[in-house]
C-alpha cells in the first residue's frame, strides 16, 4: 500500500540533544575529543558506530546545551556532568548484567530500577516513570521508513540498539514505515496497550499524533525527535535534537579541498530549514578553503526515491560535479552513483562507507544512543522535564563519520580542526555578512541563535539551483 502517492515526509527539523559521547575518527582512524585537544589527542581508535569509548572525556566538560527553551536543558546538562567518573553501565539487577563492552550510560549509570532519585517534578510536568525491580521498562520507537536504510531511520535504530545494550532493564519495541499522519496514533496506541511507558516518535511529522496520544495517556512519556514544543504541547511530550549542520561545515572543508572541477553537488529532498542550513553550511565550509568552489543544488521532492536520486546524481555528474553531498533518507543510490563514476561522496545521517569503499569521504551523522539512554534514565529517575533541547557537536549527538581512504591526511586535519573549533564555540559558521541568492544580506554580524537559524528559508548567494516554490 505504500506504493501509492503517499506522505513521504520524513526526517525532521533538527535540534536537540543532551550529554553524550563525542566521537570522531580523525587522522588515520583515531578518535579525538574536541573538548580537549582536537586532532592531536588521540585515544585508541574507535569504530564509527555509536560507541561510548569517549564517554568519560565528555563528562569532564559541562555540556553546553543550546536549548531553544533553556531552562530544562540545564537539568539535562547537569545530570550529564554529574556522571563524571561514574559512567558505570546501568544495570538491573546489578549482578546479572552482561555488560556490553564500551557501551556506557552517559549519566546515572548507577540507577537501580525501583528507586526514584529525585523528587518528582511539579504537577505540570510528566509523572516519573516507575520501573519495579524485576520488571522491564518497555520503550517504543517509531520510524518513518525502513530501519536498515543506512540513513535517518538506520541512525535512530542504532540508537535503539544502543539503549538495549546499555540498559538491560529496558525492553524496546519498534515500528517501521510509520506514516507521518494520524496512522501513527494507532501505532503508538498499540505500543502503549502493550505496556510501553516511553515512546520515541522519531520523525518530524510524528509530533502531532504524539501530542494527541499524550493527552490520552498522561502516564506515558513521549520524547519526540526534532519537534518544537509550544504552549499547546501536552506536559508529557518532550523534544530533543542535534544541530547536524555544525558537522556540515567541516564536511564542506573536505569537499572544497578535494574537488578538482570546483563543482560540488547537493541532492536535497525538500526545502525545510534543516536542509537549507545543511546546504549553506557545507557551502560555507567549502568556500572557506576554496573560494572558487561552486555548489549545485537539486531537490527531488521525495525522501526516498532511488530512481529520482540516481537521475539527480547523474545529471550533476554530467555537469562536471565531482563531490556529491545529500540530504535524503536513504543515501544508497546516490552514494553508489558517485562511486561508479568516481566522484567523492559526502553522505548523511550515518556511515554508509560500505556502499562506496573507494569514494566515501565522510558524513555528518547522528549518534543517538547516548541521548536516548540519558533521556530514559532521566525519566525513570524523575528528573526529566519536557523541553525543546538542541545541541550539536559539543555534546556528541552529532558526529562526523569516519573518513574514507580517499581523504588525505592534511584534509582530515583541516576538517577535524574546524570540527573542534565549532564544538568549542570558537568558530561560528553562520557569521555575517551572508547574502542570499538575490543578494540581500540575511545575516549581518554574529551568528544568530539556534531558534533563528532553524527558520532559514534561503540559499547563499552563488549557490546554483533554486528553492522549489
Amino acid at each position, binding site marked *: 500500500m*505504500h506504493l501509492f502517492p503517499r506522505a513521504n515526509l520524513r526526517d525532521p527539523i533538527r535540534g536537540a540533544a543532551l550529554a553524550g559521547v563525542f566521537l570522531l575518527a580523525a587522522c588515520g582512524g583515531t578518535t579525538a575529543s574536541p573538548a580537549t585537544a582536537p586532532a592531536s589527542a588521540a585515544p585508541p581508535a574507535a569504530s564509527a558506530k555509536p560507541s561510548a569509548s569517549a564517554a568519560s572525556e565528555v563528562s569532564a566538560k559541562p555540556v553546553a546545551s543550546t536549548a531553544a527553551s533553556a531552562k530544562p536543558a540545564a537539568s539535562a546538562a547537569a545530570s550529564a556532568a554529574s556522571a563524571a567518573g561514574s559512567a558505570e553501565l546501568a544495570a538491573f539487577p546489578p549482578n546479572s548484567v552482561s555488560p556490553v563492552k564500551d557501551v556506557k550510560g552517559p549519566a546515572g549509570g548507577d540507577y537501580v530500577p525501583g528507586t526514584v532519585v529525585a523528587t518528582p517534578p511539579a504537577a505540570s510536568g510528566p509523572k516519573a516513570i516507575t520501573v519495579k525491580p524485576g520488571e522491564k521498562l518497555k520503550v517504543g520507537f517509531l520510524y518513518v521508513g525502513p530501519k*536498515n536504510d543506512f540513513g535517518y531511520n538506520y541512525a535512530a535504530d542504532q540508537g535503539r540498539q544502543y539503549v538495549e545494550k546499555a540498559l538491560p532493564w529496558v525492553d524496546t519495541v519498534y515500528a517501521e514505515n510509520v506514516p507521518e499522519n494520524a496512522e501513527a496514533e494507532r501505532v503508538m496506541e498499540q505500543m502503549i496497550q502493550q505496556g510501553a511507558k516511553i515512546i520515541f516518535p522519531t520523525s518530524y511529522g510524528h509530533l502531532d499524533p504524539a501530542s494527541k496520544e499524550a493527552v490520552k495517556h498522561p502516564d506515558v512519556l513521549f520524547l519526540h525527535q526534532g519537534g518544537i514544543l509550544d504552549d499547546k504541547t501536552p506536559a508529557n511530550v518532550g523534544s530533543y535534537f542535534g544541530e547536524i549542520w555544525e558537522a556540515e561545515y567541516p564536511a564542506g572543508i573536505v569537499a572544497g579541498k578535494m574537488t578538482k572541477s570546483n563543482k560540488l553537488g547537493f541532492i536535497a529532498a525538500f526545502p525545510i530549514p534543516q536542509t537549507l542550513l545543511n546546504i549553506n553550511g557545507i557551502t560555507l565550509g567549502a568556500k572557506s578553503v576554496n573560494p572558487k568552489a561552486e555548489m549545485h543544488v*537539486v531537490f527531488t521532492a521525495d525522501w526516498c526515491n532511488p*530512481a*529520482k536520486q540516481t*537521475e539527480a546524481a547523474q*545529471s550533476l555528474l*554530467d555537469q562536471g560535479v565531482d563531490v556529491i553531498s545529500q540530504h535524503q533518507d*536513504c543515501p544508497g543510490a546516490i552514494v553508489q*552513483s558517485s562511486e561508479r563514476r568516481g566522484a567523492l561522496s559526502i553522505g548523511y545521517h550515518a556511515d554508509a562507507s560500505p556502499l562506496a569503499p573507494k569514494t566515501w569521504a565522510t558524513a555528518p551523522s547522528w549518534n543517538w544512543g547516548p541521548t536516548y539512554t540519558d533521556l530514559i534514565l532521566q525519566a525513570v529517575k524523575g528528573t526529566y522535564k519536557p523541553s525543546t533541547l538542541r545541541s550539536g557537536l559539543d555534546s556528541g549527538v552529532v558526529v562526523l563519520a569516519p573518513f574514507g581512504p580517499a581523504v588525505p591526511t592534511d584534509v582530515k586535519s583541516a576538517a577535524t580542526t574546524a570540527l573542534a573549533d565549532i564544538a568549542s564555540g570558537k568558530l561560528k559558521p553562520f557569521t555575517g555578512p551572508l547574502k542570499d541568492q538575490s543578494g540581500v544580506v540575511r545575516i549581518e554580524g554574529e551568528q544568530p541563535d539556534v531558534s533563528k537559524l532553524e527558520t532559514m528559508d534561503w540559499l547563499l548567494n552563488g549557490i546554483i539551483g533554486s528553492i522549489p516554490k
Partner: protein
Amino acid sequence: MALAFVLAVLTGAVRSAVSVLFATLGEVIAERAGVLNLGVEGCMLVGACGGFIVGVETDNTLLAIVVGTLLGGVVSLIHAYLTISRGANQVASGLALLFFCLGLTALIGAPYVSKNVTGLNPVPVPLLSELPYLGPILFRHDLLSYAAYLLCPVVWFVLFRTRWGLIVRAVGEDARVPFAAGWKVRPVQYAAVFIGGLLGGLGGAHLSLAYTHSWVEGMTNGRGFIAVALVIFSTWHPIRALGGALVFGGAIALQLQLQGLGVPVSPFVLNMAPYILTIVVLLLTSRNRRFSMPQGLRLSFQGS
C-alpha cells in the same frame, strides 16, 4: 547553454525511460492479447527485488537479470490464471497482484536494503558514442538500455509481421475469430501475459541492477502504473511506446534541469504532463481506427 540544456534533458530522459520502456513494451503485448495487467508494478518490484538478491548473493549480474526477469513472468502467471482461466475481473486481479508483490518484496527484500551489488555499468558503444549529440544521448548507457531500444522494433516485428503476432492481435480483437480458425485462445493469452511479466521483471531488474544499484521497498514508485498509462498513450503500439517512455523520462529530467536554471516551474505540474498528454492523445486519436484499443480489451476495461 541552450544546447547543453537540451542535451542534458534528452540524456536524462533516455536514462529514466529505460525501465519504464521495458514494462510498457511488455504491457503492449499483454493488452494486444486482450489482457490488462494493472499489476505490472508488482512484476517490476519482483524483478527488481529478486534480481537484486541474486546479484548480491552470486555476484553474477547476468544470472541476476535472468532471474529477475523470470520472476516477473512467474508472478504474472497468477494474474493470467485468475483472469484467463477463472474469468476474474482484470482490474481487481491486477491490483491484487500489486498488493501481493509489494508486500512480498518488502518482506523478503528487507535484509538486502543497502547491500552492495556489482550490477551493470555504462558501456559506450564504439564509434556511435562519439557521434555529436546522439552519442552522449543514446550510446553511453548500460547494455540493457541498448537492448530496450532494440526491443521496440523487435516487438513491433513480432506483433505485426509474424504469424504469432497476428494471432495475438486477433485474440485481442475478438477471441472468436482465432478460435474459429482452430487456434487455442488461452495459451496465446497466457504467453502474452507471461511475456508482459517477463519484460516488467526485466524493467525492474534494470532499475535495481543497472540504474540505481540499490534496493528499497516500493522503489518502483509507480513506474508500473506509468507503464500502463504509456501503453494507452502509445495507443498499443511498440514504436510509439518509445516516444511515451521518453516523454515520461523527459518530464523527470526537465524538472531537475530547470531547477539548475532557477526556473520556477512546479515539479508536480511537470509530472502531470505524461497523464494529461495521454488523455489528449486519446481524444485526438479516438476517431481514427488505426489508433483504437483492441476490441477484446474494451471488455477488460469494462470490468466484466
